[in-house]
């Protein structure tokens, strides 16, 4: 994984764990919070990780946002306070100045998600995840762990296929996937969902859920997109 810069805005223990993980993977992390207590939480990481910058600043300061250093290879900007309104203002401002940067936000109330999506922000909604987890474990007793317990080795990708992609309008058997990769689920644009076979055809706007070993992720994307 090449070294990237990640901006993390706000958040307490979640920000600490996320920053630690990203730093261990060799990335650079800039953490920004208006709350000195939050800065103190992450300060412990600085002793071991020189690539961590802690910035005590108002993250809704329009002039400051405008002058963020985006010249480096930015992996993502991640906004994870417990306040949806604060997260929305930050992400909205970021989007005004940085059209192409990947922005992710924690959305604590799922009903607010549509506003974030309208400005092209990826959302993390723990309540929705938990609902799905509970629903799955109630309906199917065998599914007790909804999340990927092998996250360090196995990736579960969700790719949307569009017209012009290598796999669009092709049957599964005609696509050469890298080894240790399998398309597990196909979701059609009308919401219908099934496990594809060799003769299943991939169409425009289909979503594919793919299981691949970490080292095959890039090759998988290249084979399909």
């Amino acid at each position, binding site marked *: 994984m090449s070294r990237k810069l990640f901006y993390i805005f706000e958040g307490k223990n979640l920000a600490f764990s996320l920053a630690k993980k990203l730093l261990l993977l060799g990335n650079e992390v800039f953490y920004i919070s208006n709350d000195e207590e939050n800065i103190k939480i992450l300060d412990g990481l600085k002793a071991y990780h020189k690539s961590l910058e802690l910035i005590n600043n108002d993250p*809704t*300061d*329009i002039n400051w946002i405008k002058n963020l250093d985006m010249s480096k290879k930015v992996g993502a900007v991640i906004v994870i306070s417990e*306040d*949806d*309104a*604060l997260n*929305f*203002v930050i992400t*909205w*401002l970021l989007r*005004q100045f940085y059209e192409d940067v990947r922005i992710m936000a924690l959305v604590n*109330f799922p*009903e*607010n998600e*549509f*506003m974030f999506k*309208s400005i092209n922000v990826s959302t993390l909604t723990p309540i929705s995840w938990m609902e799905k987890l509970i629903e799955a474990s109630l309906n199917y007793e065998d599914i007790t762990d909804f999340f990927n317990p092998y996250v360090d080795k196995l990736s579960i990708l969700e790719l949307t296929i569009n017209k012009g992609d290598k796999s669009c309008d092709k049957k599964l058997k005609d696509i050469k996937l890298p080894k240790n990769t399998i398309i597990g689920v196909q979701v059609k644009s009308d919401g219908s969902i099934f496990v594809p076979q060799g003769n299943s055809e991939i169409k425009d706007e289909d979503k594919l859920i793919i299981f691949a070993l970490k080292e095959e992720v890039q090759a998988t994307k290249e084979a399909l997109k």
Partner: protein
Amino acid sequence: MFRNKKNIKYIVIIGCGRLGSELALKFSKTHNVVVIDKNEESFYRLSNRNFTGFTHTIDTTDIEALKKMKLDKADLVYIVTPDDNLNFMLAYGIKMMKYDIKLIARVNDPVKKGIFNKAGVTLFCPIENSVNDLVEDFERIEGND
């Protein structure tokens, strides 16, 4: 004197603090007013003061719940909670519901005005207005000396 029915507007006020409640009392004399706040106790400011509108206790951070209040039918929506970030998010969400809705948002921190202006949200800033009034008064007094 009776008012012309056509002049009676449907006004929604989100936030029933000191500002929201005074606004509601004033408007309810001549218009149909609905006041929304997440805290039922906030409505005590309207009690025993001849408020003739309606009150609703709704979580103001829940835009879906606000949708049910027929905001799209309102002639005017005032968003006057003490939280600038919330006021911005609500203004944005309500405008997504109905783009041409007449909406005025309160901005508590004058520094945050730029964000609202950038999004094209009509705003008023009580602190800035008060400062301007005080400075004008001062200049008038100085001018008379």
